[in-house]
């Protein structure tokens, strides 16, 4: 290219000129990702194949035992329960978030911005404070039990604490704001004339919803699922704070292996499993969205 213009520039200089802007802007984050994400990740993969010694140290002996150990019914049960609670949380987030997002999207943009702000406020309050208040609400002598007993709906306080239910409620308080945002973004972009076209062509409201609204807001729905399901799966402080150790989820399990039992290799293998499950979700997502593009031809 340089010769074409009849100008010869020293290669070194031109290389720097060409790549300088790119390097200076993406360089810092690349270094950051390398040092704080990629290297720790590789290290975790590495130790997941190592052996633990009696004192909680790591012996550099290759083994697959850590992965075999996961298959024990005890751990499979924990994984199953994590999937189940994350799934329930996701479904409830969708069921609650979609109508709310739809409602907000129908408002003028100024009002919508205020409403979105209201949705986000809980997210900005400290999550532990929020969890402990959920804890207090659900306590044996907490307000919920008191009210229910006062109006005579129950005679004895419900044992809500340390149950799957309260963990799901805890997960919901953490996740709901995230579910509304992607849903709102895609519903807000939905061309309202398409809904009118569907109505005009003879479709009743529920048919329009199923055939036009849902398919066209699918990116938001998938975004919501990813944003809620994946963090719910690995979140350990929620079951810790609300489940009181009774509700064991995969996140807590990983934490226990690293910090309590001092079995780093096993903890690492569980962590890798969690990462793989996440990647599988993302893979399904990209496949679903790609298939949609390919159908054009």
């Amino acid at each position, binding site marked *: 290219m340089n010769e074409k213009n009849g100008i010869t520039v020293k290669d070194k200089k031109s290389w720097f000129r060409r790549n300088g802007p790119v390097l200076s802007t993406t360089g810092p984050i690349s270094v950051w990702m390398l040092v704080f994400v990629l290297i720790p990740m590789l290290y975790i993969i590495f130790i997941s194949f190592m052996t633990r010694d009696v004192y909680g140290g790591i012996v550099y002996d290759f083994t697959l035992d850590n992965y075999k150990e996961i298959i024990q019914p005890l751990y499979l049960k924990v994984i199953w329960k994590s999937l189940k609670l994350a799934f329930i949380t996701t479904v409830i987030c969708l069921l609650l978030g979609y109508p709310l997002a739809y409602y907000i999207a129908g408002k003028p943009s100024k009002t919508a911005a205020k409403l979105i702000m209201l949705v986000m406020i809980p997210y900005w309050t400290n999550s532990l404070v929020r969890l402990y208040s959920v804890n207090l609400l659900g306590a044996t002598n907490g307000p919920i039990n008191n009210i229910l007993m006062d109006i005579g709906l129950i005679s004895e306080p419900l044992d809500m604490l340390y149950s799957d239910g309260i963990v799901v409620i805890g997960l919901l308080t953490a996740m709901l704001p995230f579910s509304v945002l992607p849903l709102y973004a895609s519903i807000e972009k939905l061309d309202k*004339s398409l809904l*009118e*076209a*569907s*109505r*005009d*062509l003879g*479709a009743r409201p529920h048919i329009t919803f199923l055939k036009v609204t849902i398919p066209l807001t699918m990116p938001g729905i998938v975004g919501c699922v990813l944003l809620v399901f994946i963090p719910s799966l690995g979140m350990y402080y929620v079951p810790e704070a609300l489940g009181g150790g009774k509700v064991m989820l995969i996140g807590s399990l990983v934490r226990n292996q690293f910090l309590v039992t001092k079995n780093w290799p096993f903890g690492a293998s569980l962590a890798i499993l969690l990462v793989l499950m996440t990647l599988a979700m993302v893979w399904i997502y990209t496949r679903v969205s790609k298939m949609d593009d390919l159908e*054009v031809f």
Partner: protein
Amino acid sequence: MADVIVELEKVNKYFGQNHVIKDFDLRIIEGEFLTLLGPSGCGKTTILRMIAGLEDATSGTIKIQDERVEDKEAYERDVNTVFQSYALFPHMTTYENIAYGLNVKKIPKQEIKERVREMLEMVQLMGYEGRKPDMMSGGQKQRVAIARALINKPKVLLLDEPLGALDLKLRKQMQIELKRLQKKLNITFVYVTHDQEEALTMSDRIAVMQEGVVEQLGTPDEIYKYPGTKFVAGFIGESNIFEGEIISAKNGILKVAGSSGEKMTLLGSGFDEGEPIQVCVRPEAAVYSKEPKDGFSLKGTVRNIIFVGSQYRTLILLENGQEVKINRGRKDRDIKEGDVVYIYWEDEDGFGIRKKGQETQK
């Protein structure tokens, strides 16, 4: 005579405090191509949407085939719309888009297949059934939108500026095709546009609208030749308008004294002597020359001669300061800017408009 298929009576529509449709009456005849023509904001699209059921009238009655439909939802009405932005479903192929209305009505799959094929043939889109809207040109999308509406065999097809987004050449071509389609299928078309040329080309009748009322309803010919109001005269084609007063009305010939004393003649009946009148002359109907003509002529100075493609447009400044536009096919060699000329026209080329009231006369 022909049957009325859509009837609007005393229809009013408010958007908040805005009174956009005012005591609107209109009867649409079965099988006709009716155009609602008017500047943007005149309420023409609102009328269309009220017929479709996408908008509720604040008051008044709307009938489709003698049946009141104010309480019927859009999906219960036997009318279909071609939207301004096409509003094709982006996640569906051409086939799925066209089949949508039939699918919703749970028509057997085999019949849907046949009818979609018929439609594709009719709008000349064979081979495009697998394409999605974003892989098609504006003209093709337009055809899909038309097919998607027509496959339902609506009693009335409503078209909301359907050609607005197309380029001039394609628009002209689609105008002819739409007209041909309408004749062939014999379906009532109600067409909304702000393009007067489009309206004149395609319509059986035109309703010229302004600020929520019909200014004039008539065939393109009537509306062009005999505009009933100053607004119509200015909106459909161009007009030179002279204010004046009738000094004599005999045998269908009006003699008018202009506001600065100039005399004009034109054909017209039903006017009274002494009545104020507006005299309109189309730019292509007026003539000018260096010599005054016996009958009457207006004196003016040539200000500008502009070449506008198919013709030359001359702007002439009258002594009272009014500017007159005259179009000519050829350039006059001996007339230059700054020359004094005399303007006149044949009696039948001028037409009068009453200052008050909206009646038309001939």
